[in-house]
Structure formats: structure tokens, C-alpha cells
């Protein structure tokens, strides 16, 4: 129910086209990269998907994060711009359900983006690496991992957007987070939102950190979700 209502609210906001365009734009990176550097890449040994991910994922992940930030801002801008949120507050609907409906939509469209990106990576591997053997399980694992490690970022960004009535404030906070966390790469910070999406499954497995990443990202997502519910209760008390 919440999902249906929240998706209706996004009509004509450009939300879905923005995500699809972002997905396709991110997917263009490995294609262009291979067109330019195919000779260097094809002589490397290793799984072609891992090679392609190592070469392109940083850029693709950054695009995914930026699109998620814009998406969260768009979602709450439609709520605050013409007081739609105030109308929702006087209807028998829980604000928490609205928030989780938005989170579910953001996760779904992000998943579509990652699937598009993975499909293009597979296409690149097949086209430029003749010996590449398609392994569905490996692709599903990689896709799932990349989606799960994005979840804390999506959730935190929605929390920030829900707290800021001015879209530019939440957008600014999101962008500051992206650049702050990307210039301090270290093992601990990589577990935090806005930094975790840059991780790659193959590298995490090599360092035996894939389970750690999945667990920490899962916990962070739940914690931010609980924080939002508490925030909504507190906000009501101070209004």
C-alpha cells in the first residue's frame, strides 16, 4: 500500500528517468574504457568481470551514489514543496511507513541500475574476452553484494532528506559526505555509508571481508531506519 502510494507521488518528478539515465551513463564507462584500453586489459590474467570491476567500479559507484543522493532529495522535495507532507501528517498513515515505502522504491530503482551495469559488464567481458565463461551464480553474488553495500548510503541519504525541508541543504550534505569519505580511504572508513559502495566483492573476498561488509552494511541500514523512526517521533514532540 505505502509502496503504491509513494510511487504515485513520484509521477512527473523525473525520478525514474533520472535513475535509468544514471544506470545507462554508469554502464557506458566500461564500454568506453574497453574501447580505449582493450589491448592492455585483455593481456591481464584473472576473471574478466573482476578485471572490469577493478578498472571501472569506482566511477560507476560514485555515479550510483550521486544518483541516489539526487533521488532522495527529489523524493522529499515533492513532499515539502507544496506542503504535501503536512497533508500526509493529518491522514491516518504512519510517517514511518511512508519513509520505508520510499526506501523500498529507492532500493528497487538502485537495483535496476546495478543490474543494468552488471549486464553491460558481462557484455564487455563476452565481447573483449573470448575465453570468458558466463557464470550466473557469480554474477548474482556480485550484483547482490554491490546492492547490499549501497543500502546504508540510500537509507542515510533518505534520513537526511527527510530532515531537511530545503532540498539544496540535503543535496549539499550528501555531496559533502561523498567527497569527504572518498578522500579518506582506509579500512575502517570503507565500512561507512558513502564509502562502502566503492568496495568490490572480489577484493573483499580476497581480504576475507565480504561477510564483514555485508553484516556491517545490514546493521547500518537497520540502525539508520530505527534512527528515522525515533527522529519522526521526536520531531512531532518539538513541533
Amino acid at each position, binding site marked *: *500500500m505505502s509502496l503504491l502510494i509513494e510511487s504515485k507521488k513520484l*509521477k512527473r518528478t523525473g525520478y525514474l528517468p533520472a535513475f535509468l539515465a544514471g544506470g545507462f551513463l554508469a554502464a557506458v564507462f566500461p564500454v568506453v574504457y574497453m574501447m580505449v584500453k582493450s589491448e592492455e586489459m585483455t593481456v591481464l590474467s584473472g576473471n574478466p568481470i573482476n578485471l572490469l570491476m577493478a578498472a571501472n567500479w569506482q566511477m560507476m559507484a560514485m555515479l550510483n551514489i550521486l544518483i541516489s543522493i539526487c533521488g532522495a532529495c527529489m523524493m522529499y522535495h515533492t513532499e515539502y514543496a*507544496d*506542503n504535501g507532507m503536512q*497533508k500526509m501528517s493529518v491522514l*491516518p498513515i504512519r510517517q514511518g511507513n511512508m519513509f520505508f515505502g520510499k526506501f523500498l522504491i529507492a532500493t528497487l530503482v538502485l537495483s535496476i541500475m546495478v543490474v543494468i551495469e552488471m549486464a553491460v559488464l558481462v557484455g564487455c567481458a563476452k565481447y573483449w574476452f573470448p575465453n570468458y565463461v558466463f557464470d550466473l551464480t557469480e554474477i548474482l553474488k556480485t550484483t547482490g553484494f554491490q546492492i547490499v553495500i549501497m543500502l546504508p548510503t540510500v537509507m542515510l541519504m533518505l534520513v537526511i532528506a527527510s530532515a531537511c525541508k530545503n532540498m539544496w541543504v540535503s543535496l549539499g550534505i550528501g555531496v559533502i559526505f561523498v567527497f569527504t569519505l572518498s578522500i579518506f580511504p582506509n579500512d575502517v572508513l570503507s565500512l561507512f555509508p558513502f564509502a562502502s559502495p566503492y568496495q568490490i566483492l572480489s577484493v573483499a573476498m580476497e581480504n576475507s571481508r565480504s561477510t564483514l561488509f555485508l553484516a556491517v552494511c545490514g546493521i547500518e541500514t537497520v540502525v539508520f531506519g530505527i534512527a528515522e523512526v525515533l527522529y519522526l517521533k521526536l520531531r512531532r514532540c518539538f513541533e
Partner: protein
Amino acid sequence: MNIIETQDLTKTYGDFTAVSHLNLHIRKGSVYGFLGPNGAGKSTTMKMFLGLTQPTEGRFHIDGKTYPSDRVSILKEVGSFIEAPAFYGNLTGEENLEIIRKILGLPKNCVDDALKLVGLTEFRKRLARKYSLGMKQRLGLAGALIGRPPILILDEPTNGLDPVGIHEIRTLIRSLPQKYDCTVLVSSHLLAEVELMADDIGILNHGHLLFEGTMEELKISARAAGFPTDNLEDTFLAMIDEDNHRRGGTV
């Protein structure tokens, strides 16, 4: 029988008391005019009824239900319009009402009914952000009236409407108790407007309830207090002025 009752309802913001020990009694099936100058505490009181702001002290009951434990159940019974029209500008008038209909679990024909009640049927497919101020006001009212709830809380519903629109909305509000067995709490700072549609009135100033009763009772009370009674606007102004002087201000 009172459908809305408050007991010592108070709201303070730091040092400022917006509503002070308010005791309202709103009869079921009546139009209750909530009157007071700007900043008197009318909107704050209505916001408390809708759970948009927490009371600092006191409590209230709506249709036998208590806030905050029955908040969601209260909201199911109350249609409201607070301060300014609230809508999604990227959606059409019809789509806005469709969202409210889905949340309230109402049948599909309720949207058409609400649009017809406020005279927006012709503009149902237009984006809400492209509506004129009066049309936005009507859309807000349609959002409150959809499903014909038993209680309506309307905060200055005729703001921004042209004289014809004001007359239409006033007539509509006046007719609601008879037509749909509905109770209406409507605020205004215009006595003439309230006089034309309310059965009972409550006059609020600086968060204090100065008077509560019927229009006749207001006249009797004003006469007894030595206020002018020829013109109700003069009565209202004299009451407010006297209260302001008593509080040591002239606002």
C-alpha cells in the same frame, strides 16, 4: 452531546504561551466558529487536534477518543484543512485526491464527489501547481471533504477565494451538518463570516477563551458587560480591546 472537548489545553513555545488552559465544548452536528485575531491561537489549537503539535498541558477528546493513544483512529474521522492548501504540485487535482482516497480506504467515486462538492470537476486533470490560489484552496477543501468525514476542522477555509467562492464555500459549510450529519470546526478572524455560518462561537485572544456560546448568548453577555451590541463586529472588537487592555497591551 459534545463531539470535541478540551480540558485545560495549553501550548507553550519557550516563554510564549500560544494557547492557555482552553476548555472548548463543540456540540455534535453543529458548525462551531472559532474566532480571534491573527496569532490568537486558533491554528495552534486545531494543529493540536490533528496531532501536528503536542499539547504542553491538558488534554482533549474527539468523538470519545483520546489523544495521543487514539491518534490514528481520530484522524480517520477528521477531515482537515490547516492554514494553507497542502498538495503535491506534480500531480493533478484528481491524482492528489486519489492518494488521499487510497489512504482512507474509500470507494473510487469519492474523488468525483469531492471534486464536485468544491466545483473542481472541470479542472480535475490540471496539475495542482498550475491551479490559481482559489483553486488550490478548493483542492485543499476537497481533500478535507473527501469521504464526507463526521468531523471537519477547517482553518480559514475561504482565504484566497473570490466573493463568489466565499459564498459557495460558506453555503457548503453551512449545509454540511444537515446533509451529512457532520460537525464542523471552522476558524476565521472575520466575525461577519462566522456569523453567517456558525451555530456556536468561541472567541480566542492571546490563547485565552473569552467567550463560548451561541450568537444570542454572545449578545446577552456583551450587553451585560457594557459592550456595543448593534453590530457584532463592534462587539468582537470591543471584547478583544478590553482583553488587550486588561493584559497591559494594545495589540
